[in-house]
């Protein structure tokens, strides 16, 4: 009896990522499917794409995605289709539209701004350490040549 319960438990485990049966025979289409899957979010999971996820919904999305591919959709058409069905939330790479531009531009802006500030600070910091006169230079050279590190 106990063995039966355990067997039932094992049978009930969720699937793991892409199943062999889901894969397309055409390797080019399948490669495109894998690439697209990595950019689509498993909606019921926490931060997993549908390619990695073991959830049932992810499996459905993978199959749906492959159906569209077989039907001859382009990558953009498939993504538009997914967004139309599930909303922007499905995209792991946020679109570059509207306020999202802030997200995309912010790093470079900060980098340029920080660079400018740092550049100004460095030029202001720049001292003019007195250059060595020839006598000092010669003495330094002598010291360097006879250099014995302890």
């Amino acid at each position, binding site marked *: 009896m106990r063995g039966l319960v355990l067997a039932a438990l094992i049978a009930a485990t969720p699937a*793991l990522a892409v199943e062999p049966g889901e894969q397309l025979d055409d390797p080019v289409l399948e490669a495109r499917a894998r690439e697209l899957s990595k950019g689509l979010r498993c909606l019921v999971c926490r931060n997993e794409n549908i390619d990695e996820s073991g959830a049932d919904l992810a499996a459905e999305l993978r199959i749906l995605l492959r159906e569209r591919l077989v039907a001859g959709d382009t990558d953009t058409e498939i993504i538009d289709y997914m967004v139309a069905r599930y909303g922007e939330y499905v995209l792991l790479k946020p679109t570059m539209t509207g*306020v999202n531009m802030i997200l995309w531009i912010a790093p470079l802006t900060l980098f340029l701004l920080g660079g400018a500030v740092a550049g100004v600070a460095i030029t202001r910091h720049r001292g003019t350490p007195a250059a060595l006169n020839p006598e000092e230079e010669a003495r330094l050279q002598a010291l360097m040549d006879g250099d014995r590190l302890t």
Partner: protein
Amino acid sequence: MIAELGHFALITAFAVAIVQMIVPMIGAWKGWSGWMAVASPAASAQVALVGVAFAALTYAFVTSDFSLRLVVLNSHTDKPMLYKVTGVWGNHEGSLLLWVLILALFGATAAWFGGQLPATLKARVLAVQASIGVAFYAFILFTSNPFIRMPVPPFNGEDLNPLLQDPGLAFHPPFLYLGYVGLSMSFSFAVAALIEGRVDAAWGRWVRPWTLAAWLFLTVGIALGSWWAYYELGWGGFWFWDPVENASFMPWLIAAALLHSAIVVEKREALKAWTILLAILAFGFSLVGTFIVRSGVLTSVHAFANDPERGVFILAILGFFTGGALLLYAVRAPVMQAKGVFGVVSRESALVANNLLLVVSAFVVFTGTVWPLVAELAFGRTLSVGPPFFNMAFTPFVIVLAAILPVGSILPWKRGRGRVLRVLWPVAVLALAVMGLVWAMQTGRSLGGPLGAGLGVWLFAGAVVDLATRTGRGRWSDRLGRVTRLPGADWGKALAHGGLGITVFGVAALIAWQQEGIAVLDIGDRLTVGKYEVVLNDVTQLRGPNYVATRADLTAWENGRLLGDLFPEKRIYPVAQMPTTEAGIDSSLTRDVYAVIGDAQTGGGWAIRVYIKPFANWIWGGAIIMALGGLLSLTDRRYRVAAGARKAPATGGVPAE
């Protein structure tokens, strides 16, 4: 009874921390040495008291005391002893207790080894450290008390989350906390210096060991977490840009920046105000991380249970400490005057560039992490920010950082000439040659592989050359002798930079050249992936202490050469009602063969997945070498000579064993 003792000790520690927060601060202000002297024994007492509380909770877990609510929720009599112990911090309340224990421990190290610190600075550092303690004692006692009893104790517990029952993840949190909390010392030093109104070379030297310690623990903690994700989550990913991972990565980046700018303060008395700001930000990001993990605002794979009340409390702590410190900074920073001057081409400038790049990368991680929240609250757009964004926005800054690193590390202080860089020419040629070779050898797929390989060689060989130049001139035999006698700091720098090169190489190689095969196999069938072959010998059911498992027996071959057997498992933890996967991995220096067993198929056979992961171990190996570099740097005798450590033990302190 023992639990009550622990509870009582924790409350007492709270009271001691309040005293330590107020009395030495007033003493330092008024110049009363008696009041200032309260700080050290109080810091020691805190460690002893929290230590008792932690021991009491551990005892409850080890003896499976199901009258404690926390033990019921997170333990089970069948759980192996190792995970009974590590289960203490495998939950919100217990991990917070570990957090305050480490906080107290760090404070006490300042009391024990800070004999050489000026009395007022030491008193203020300990008082600020105690104020952080007060906030967290209040948090744990009022919202997350681990010592709450059950009205009716059940016969058994609900078991620990099975994902946490793993050696990699069991020791991941303590290291992370040592890092997060270690940054509180840098924060306390920064705030104390702001109150004191003085930052000089000596301050830079004092603050560095603690930052270094925090950074190296964070490095180990992040590496452990990444390694765990690799072998446990079932498909060999090593970094997910998950909010919780980002929470530990942001302080790591800022701490790395702080580490480098504190060198400039120590050696050249420049960048003082900036260093103080970084110290505040580093701990600020630690608190942001705590908030992300424990509030559940940003849901993630391994966040602790969500509770709005706790989130608000942490937000208040975060706001008070970073806000307060930044305010203080705004008022006092102009007092910090730089002394050292330096030219545009100099080590100082290179370190400024390092700081800029590290801080901007941390900012990229931060915006990406919080953007979904901001977009939803402010603009009503529900969206996701996932790995594709981070890979695109983060990587360029790392590439630039890696490209300038060897140059910066070899430039002299103050004013450099292009001449000194001549030694790097062979390295650059080597790196470019490797890049070209890899480009020619791979089947023209991606730019990432060649670029990563080239940068890895550039960083590693650059570190070797840097070390070699430290040996001065003369015959090779003399220089070889000298290299063994170089100070720990030189070796530490070379190892840390070389380790980064190894990690960069490993990441690029794994992403660019991974291969995979998925198939339904019956017993006796084989699956071919590249030059590797795997045969399914058998599938068995077996029973562990608190789980049942389906285990595959696979034999792996490389070009017809026998590699050995792999035993991937799929486990079910009946009490927790959760499945986990255990990958079967054959590791070697240049690749991992990584096998996972999936479901039994309706038509017979099993879904088997095999990945070839090139240079996978280099990712964590490089991180461990980086941490080792930090450790070596920490042992540099110049710190001990300068800080006069261990010379003056705390007066009248309570021993903390």
